[in-house]
């Protein structure tokens, strides 16, 4: 039919105009923290300094990065590079940028992330990209409420139980709605679980459900039953949906909020001097006082026709002065080893926020090996989804803790088996 002929020629017209430019790469990033907005000045400078080469930053939603990008990559489509958060899971799509970057420097500065990006291939020496910022899970505490309740703020080294006890007392004394809240996220729960001795994943990359995890789930569920934590997050939401209620902390509805470093930039703008707050040292469990490391990475993809331009740009972003500029604008923690030691100036952040950033950075050496291993695991997402789904079921009395542990193991094993079917 002629109709289809004309339609398809129009379609090809669109395709042709879209791919007309030479030496241009497109990078997906979202708008938050270390993303398109904060990277834009650096990209502009790069384009000015490199005539004939263009780096285009494509602002996309987080959902695009998590849900659409992997499918696009699988079909050989998608951008040339992107800021992603599932470092190990997308491993097979990365391009090796070693020839185009200062490999020795990358190894020195970003060693840990590079390892994570290599996924299950332990022997690989590839350099697939660079970390953007380092995020750290951690606890925000409303100091004003503590002061009003006359309860001393637990010191460094205080346990989760001590914090829960103190937060309960404060909430009761000040008539605050809830003592504690934690993001509905497997990543946040992992901090809690690992500090209770959970391994989550062994050296071979198999899921581990152990007594530590059991203890953590038991305690967590009990806190939901006795009102230490509200049901809004882990109780009310189902499936693998991620949910946060940081507004509760911003509005002083909760004494202790376990979230992470990425919300720090909201404190100055939204809390201001409404109340005194602080980020405190991560509470300890019987096993360790660990938080979870996190953060995205800027990676190049295999199908790009211009790997050298991708490499060149990533190398440019990794230059200390450029990297510092982005980190400072994003008010985030740098992931480069030398900058963690040296520190970064945040000219736009308040004194309080800078103290909080330092507290977050102080948690890094305290992170347990299991936390790093879990963060770099290819099936981390499968495990995190299983954790949120199953724990919510336990809270709603649909499963016992024992059954939940069994299901978590089955969920992850099924994911591994499905992904690696030969």
């Amino acid at each position, binding site marked *: 039919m002629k109709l289809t002929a004309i*339609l398809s020629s*129009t*379609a090809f017209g*669109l*395709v042709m105009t*879209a791919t007309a430019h030479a030496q241009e790469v*497109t990078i997906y990033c*979202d*708008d*938050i923290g270390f993303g398109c907005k904060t990277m834009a000045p650096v990209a502009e400078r790069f384009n000015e300094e490199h005539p004939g080469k263009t780096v285009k930053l*494509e*602002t*996309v*939603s*987080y*959902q*695009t990065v*998590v*849900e*659409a990008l992997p*499918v*696009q990559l699988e*079909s*050989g*489509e*998608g*951008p040339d590079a992107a800021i992603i*958060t599932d470092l190990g899971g997308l491993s097979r799509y990365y391009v090796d940028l070693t020839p185009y970057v200062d490999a020795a420097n990358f190894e020195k500065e970003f060693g840990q992330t590079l390892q994570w990006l290599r996924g299950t291939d332990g022997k690989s020496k590839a350099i697939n990209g660079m970390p953007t910022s380092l995020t750290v899970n951690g606890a925000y505490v409303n100091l*004003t409420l503590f*002061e*009003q309740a006359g309860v001393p703020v637990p010191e460094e080294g205080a346990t989760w139980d001590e914090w829960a006890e103190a937060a309960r007392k404060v909430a009761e004394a000040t008539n605050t709605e809830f003592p504690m809240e934690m*993001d509905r996220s497997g990543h946040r729960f992992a901090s809690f679980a690992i500090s209770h001795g959970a391994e989550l994943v062994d050296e071979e990359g198999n899921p581990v459900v152990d007594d530590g995890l059991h203890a953590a789930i038991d305690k967590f569920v009990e806190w939901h039953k006795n009102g230490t934590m509200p049901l809004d997050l882990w109780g009310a939401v189902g499936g693998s949906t*991620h949910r*946060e209620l*940081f*507004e509760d902390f*911003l*509005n002083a509805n909760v004494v202790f909020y376990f*979230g*992470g470093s*990425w*919300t720090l930039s909201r404190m100055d703008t*939204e809390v201001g*001097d*409404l*109340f*005194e707050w602080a980020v405190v040292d991560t509470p300890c469990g019987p096993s360790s006082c660990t938080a979870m490391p996190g953060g995205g990475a800027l990676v190049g993809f295999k199908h790009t026709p211009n790997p050298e331009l991708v490499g060149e740009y990533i190398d440019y972003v990794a230059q200390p002065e450029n990297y510092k500029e982005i980190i400072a604008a994003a008010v985030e923690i740098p992931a480069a080893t030398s900058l963690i030691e040296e520190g970064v100036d945040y000219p736009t952040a308040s004194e309080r926020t800078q103290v909080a950033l330092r507290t977050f950075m102080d948690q890094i050496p305290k992170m347990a090996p299991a936390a790093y291993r879990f963060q770099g695991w290819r099936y981390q997402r499968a495990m995190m989804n299983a954790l949120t789904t199953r724990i919510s079921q336990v809270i709603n009395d649909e499963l016992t803790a024992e059954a939940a542990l069994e299901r978590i193991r089955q969920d992850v094993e099924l994911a591994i088996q499905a992904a690696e079917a030969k």
Partner: protein
Amino acid sequence: MTELTARTAQSSILQFLTRRRGRVRADWTDWLTYAYLFLGLAVMFAPVLWVVLSSFKAPVNLAEFPPTFLPYAAETVTVEGFDEPLSLYEVITEDGETRQLAQIRRVGLNAQMIDPANPEAGRLVVPVADAKPVRSILFTWQNYARLLSASGSDLWLFVYNSLFITIVATAITVIMNSMAAFALSKYRFKGNTLALIAILMTLMIPPTVVLVPIYLIVAQLGLVGNLWGVILPTVATPTGVFLLRQYMLTIPDELIEAARMDHASEWRIYWRIILPLSAPALAVVAIFSILSRWNDFLLPLVVLNRREVFTLQLALASFQDENQIHYDQLLAMTTLTALPLAFAFIFLQRYIASGIASTGIK
């Protein structure tokens, strides 16, 4: 005087409500009807109205509990010696008097305040519990401004893409569905029922479930990142075929027979006779196609991978990220994307009812 006007207004409203064609008095079923309709008005429309009003609230106002219906903003005052404007509070002093003071800083349960009329008097320490912010209704455009500045000059591109997809997909849908409906209603041929069932069966396939296979097909056609990649998979709507077929069944066959006598080709019969006569049903199919294409989200999310081809819905979804929902911008986005539909609806609403009324489903 005012009482009188009020009373006449009241009685005229009463009259307006009770007056009916043919009869003067309303009976109890009318009152029941009105009661139900006004309840419906509240339930159906209040949430939407509230969203629209809230889109004009500043984030601080949004986060409040209990939430306010109208947007409010704290009143500020510039006091000598302070660079930033200070927020005004109504404070009840110890002797029970109410004064308006400007807050300098708040620490815990107490706030440092200053009298804007008399700044020399120095700072006062006031318990927070005794102070109430002075506020006035203020519609702020800041959510919209931020939304628009974030999408920047590309906004028109997104609008264009959304319009292109909506209009082209709807045009193709209407033509294709009506052609199929024509074949299924005006011919007796072998396989008639089979074809109809095959088309109607697709009604049962949830689009979410075949998302991945459809993406695979679109990728094989080389249409990823192309507006046609979201247009083509959506055009063969089974409901459209069904509605149009039912309608066309009511068009008398004699018209077609007469045209055939005049040696009109089958296409001519379809294009010149059947299509014009099916206008009301075509309008209905068009309206539902416009609604669903404009609101499409999942397929565009996967297929449209470059900013140049983003639809409005996709571009504005960037305001939901992993860690938080930006309600301020989300509300503005809701209002903005629903606006064109609201206008379309105002113009088309009479066609929807009369169109469906005249389709075969009766």
